[in-house]
């Protein structure tokens, strides 16, 4: 579990992040969203002990990163688009990290195969593509079999199959009870893998809620046999109804309620669509509100 409490970081009198508070819980994938310079990376760096907070706390499983006895066995991190020495081979890089985390050589070979780099294991990482470096970074993060994964823009450079692979991996990790905190600007991709959303803007948390809750507060698109009768009926149940061409846009009702009301007033319904708000819309609404 990740617990960020009133985290503040001041650089030269400017707040990089201020009173940032949110949690990322086991069994769920939490997406950390924000524009460039919004404070996402600063938050992740403080969480991982790479920067010091001016105030507040960033805890992993109830402790600060530097207090973890075996940090690489509790937290796996993907940062800065794949960190490795360009003169080292992928295999040597992973063995170096395995020695640091206490993982076995066998785990190194298994992970190289798992991330699809077995054939390129003895190439220098300086010759790797961005996507290969990201896969190596994911393998590095998984070495210690940590329960918590922290990933900063891990999808950068991955092709569509790589993204699908990463999505499956993270969903699998969360399903097994792990905690995943991921930041990305690929909102369409993120929408497919996150359960909870934290939107940070101007160094402050603007929204922290389950994605289902944020996107579920959407309107219904209804096309029926008698729009006047339907509008009046929905209105009586407290909904807001507007007409848009040949359809009604209904807010304040669930699809079930809208269907039941139509049945009650004996108006046939030809189309009933819940227009979910996409993550991009949610993010842009929040960003534009700043």
């Amino acid at each position, binding site marked *: 579990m990740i617990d960020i409490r009133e985290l503040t970081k001041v650089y030269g009198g400017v707040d990089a992040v201020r009173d940032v508070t949110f949690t990322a819980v086991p069994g769920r994938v939490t997406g950390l969203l924000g524009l460039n310079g919004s404070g996402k*990376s600063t938050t992740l*760096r403080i969480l*991982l*002990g*790479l*920067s*010091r907070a001016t105030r507040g706390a960033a805890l992993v499983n109830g402790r600060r*990163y*530097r207090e*973890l006895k075996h*940090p*690489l066995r509790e*937290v796996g*991190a993907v*940062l*800065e688009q794949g*960190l*490795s*020495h*360009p*003169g*080292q*081979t992928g295999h*040597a890089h992973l*063995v*170096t*990290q395995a*020695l*640091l*985390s*206490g993982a076995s050589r066998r785990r190194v070979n298994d992970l190289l195969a798992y991330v699809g780099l077995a054939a390129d294991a003895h190439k*220098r990482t300086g010759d790797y593509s961005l996507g290969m470096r990201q896969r190596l970074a994911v393998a*590095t993060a998984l070495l210690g079999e940590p329960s918590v994964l922290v990933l900063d823009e891990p999808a950068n450079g991955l092709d569509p199959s790589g993204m699908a692979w990463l999505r499956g991996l993270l969903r699998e990790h969360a399903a097994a009870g792990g905690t995943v905190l991921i930041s990305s600007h690929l909102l369409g991709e993120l929408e497919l893998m996150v359960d909870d959303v934290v939107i940070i803007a101007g160094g402050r948390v603007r929204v922290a809620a389950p994605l289902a809750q944020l996107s579920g507060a959407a309107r219904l698109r209804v096309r029926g046999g008698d729009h006047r009768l339907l509008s009046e009926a929905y209105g009586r149940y407290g909904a807001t109804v507007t007409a848009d061409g040949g359809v009604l846009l209904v807010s304040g009702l669930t699809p079930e309620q809208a269907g039941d009301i139509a049945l009650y007033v004996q108006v046939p319904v030809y189309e009933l669509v819940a227009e979910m708000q996409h993550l991009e819309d949610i993010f842009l609404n929040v960003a534009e509100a700043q």
Partner: protein
Amino acid sequence: MIAVLRSELYRSLTVRSSWVSLTGFALVAALTGWFSEDFWSLFAGLGAFGLAVMLTAQHYQHRTAVLVFLGQPHRLRALAAQCVVAIVLGLLLAAVSGIPIVLMGSAAQYSSTLTVVPLIAVFGVANATIVRRPLWLLAGYLGWVLFVEGLFGRLQEPLPFTSFLFASAGRTEFVLALLAWTAAALPPAAWCIRRDLTSA
């Protein structure tokens, strides 16, 4: 600490530029040893210093310091491990490259050089931790040795590399001077290694 040490040693020996440098420095030191035992000491010391600078500063240059600090968040322990690695590789360089001068009968110079190589290696690690950029540091020290220690100090003053040179010849006062330089470099290094690692 042992895990960082093993990891750092493995990293150093599997990065091609590191062992090429190690071999290169050792060859230069060994070749110059045929001409003079003092030359061997100087190049063994410069090699140990240069190697220490490269190994340490490369972590900041390629951002792998992030990986080290994720594995060992207590950064003073990471610094200690880097010092030990630099000492081990510096001693390896000096021990192997100095075999010709032992064969030529300069065993005393060989052993006194090996005694002070750890100090110049730790001095290199401390400097690289402070400056974090290997080229700036090596170029800066080249100028320092040529102009400050050579031209102005005439290689007689107890400055770092002059101290190493005389300490390797067994002069105790210069051993103490080098010890003082190394000890003076460590507190700022200990402070600098705790600095935030910001994004690349």
